[in-house]
């Protein structure tokens, strides 16, 4: 059983083709890192998986459940909004710019979706939230507003918030790119711990050290396509594609 299956995914913004026949299958517990130059379509691909972007063509299947099968942007798969939400909730997402809710405290940020979307009762949601906040190392911050936190702390809250919905897959879009260098480590450590616990993860990242150490497979995207895919050893020490080689030379 695969957790995520993307087949021939295409995405256009007007005349601009941003994704061109992207294929990727992710197995349970796998950590896949997506690397590649700016504008390659990494974010767009990740956002397509959880419907923040509507793809133009191709299929997306989450845990064997078809979510999209689109021709010219029209979905051939008819789902009720409840069925669609149920599938989408298998995925949690962490954004580059955290996107915490500024008018809610840390605890409220983590609780809000379980209470209002999953309709879990408040006491139980609070217990889950408190545990998660502790897990990301912010037990003493649960009652403060996000504006009082450092970027690294905000991103850890954002991870806890996504985990509170108990997703089976976590999508990360450059989770450390907006952070000061000294704060990157604390966020990567939380992600590493998550990976060790067996979470299925897709991580768009510029942190090559993280990709090399934590990823099971690395995907190199270039110009809207998956240009190369392989184990970190294959990609980092022995890239086959000329573009991969050039890209790695420029960043390492």
């Amino acid at each position, binding site marked *: 059983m695969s957790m995520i299956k993307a087949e021939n995914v295409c995405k256009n913004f007007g005349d601009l083709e941003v994704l061109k026949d992207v294929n990727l299958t992710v197995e349970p517990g796998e950590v896949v890192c997506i690397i590649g130059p700016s504008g390659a379509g990494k974010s767009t691909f990740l956002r397509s998986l959880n419907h923040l972007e509507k793809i133009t063509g191709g299929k997306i299947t989450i845990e064997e459940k078809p979510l999209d099968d689109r021709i010219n942007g029209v979905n051939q798969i008819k789902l009720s909004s409840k069925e669609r939400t149920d599938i989408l909730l298998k995925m949690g997402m962490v954004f580059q*710019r955290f996107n915490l809710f500024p008018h809610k405290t840390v605890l409220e940020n983590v609780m809000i979706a379980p209470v209002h979307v999953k309709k879990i009762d408040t006491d139980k949601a609070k217990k889950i939230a408190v545990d998660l906040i502790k897990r990301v190392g912010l037990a003493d911050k649960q009652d403060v507003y996000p504006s009082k936190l450092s970027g690294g702390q905000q991103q850890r809250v954002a991870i806890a918030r996504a985990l509170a919905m108990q997703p089976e897959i976590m999508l990360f879009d450059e989770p450390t790119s907006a952070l000061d260098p000294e704060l990157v480590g604390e966020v990567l450590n939380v992600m590493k711990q998550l990976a060790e616990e067996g979470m299925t993860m897709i991580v768009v990242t510029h942190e090559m050290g993280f990709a090399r150490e934590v990823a099971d497979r690395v995907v190199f995207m270039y110009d809207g396509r998956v240009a190369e895919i392989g184990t970190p050893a294959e990609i980092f020490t022995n890239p086959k594609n000329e573009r991969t080689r050039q890209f790695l030379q420029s960043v390492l």
Partner: protein
Amino acid sequence: MDTLKEMAGWIPALLQSTGITLSLTIVSVICGLIISLFLALGKISKSKILQKLCGAYIFFFRGTPLLMQIFFIYYALPLIYSGFTIKSRFIAAWIAFSLNSGAYLAEIIRAAIQSIDKGQMEASKALGMGYGQAMRLIIIPQSIRRLIPPVGNEFIMVIKDTSLVSSIALIDLMKRTSQIMSSSASALVYIPAMCIYLAITAAFTYVFNSLEKKFSVYE
């Protein structure tokens, strides 16, 4: 000294009519806020028809004089259909002011909602919230703080605009002032009348400044 006494003597009558001015302002802006929230949501919705309808409403009420709108509701509507006859001048004025301030506030609310970072809606969706839920729990609460200063401003505008209702013979502060002016033949009545308008404006300013502070806790 005598002039001071004379002016003080007018104050009870003036204050009595201030009730109309103040209550008309408050109920109108509150109803205007409710109307404007729906107009703003319509204007940013994906439905072209809703966008056009709300746009037309706003265009109409901002594009015609308020005084004419009051006259229209009080005098012209009953001619179009007798069921629209409004006996109470106060209610007629209330409807006109609510509809009018709804149009002005709609643009303010729309701008406040659209000034909230796009990432907030995306994060809400990624957590499984629907559009309505995200608006209600995340977007609108954040726009409230940004709305407080312009809504306070709208209150102050409407207080002054209510002086127009004297034209349908509603006895507000303005009308009472003119009455005193003609009966006592003293233009000095404008001094206490203006002081009352200023006092109300100052009170609203104070309330809205405190509200703004209260809503800024998370920043």
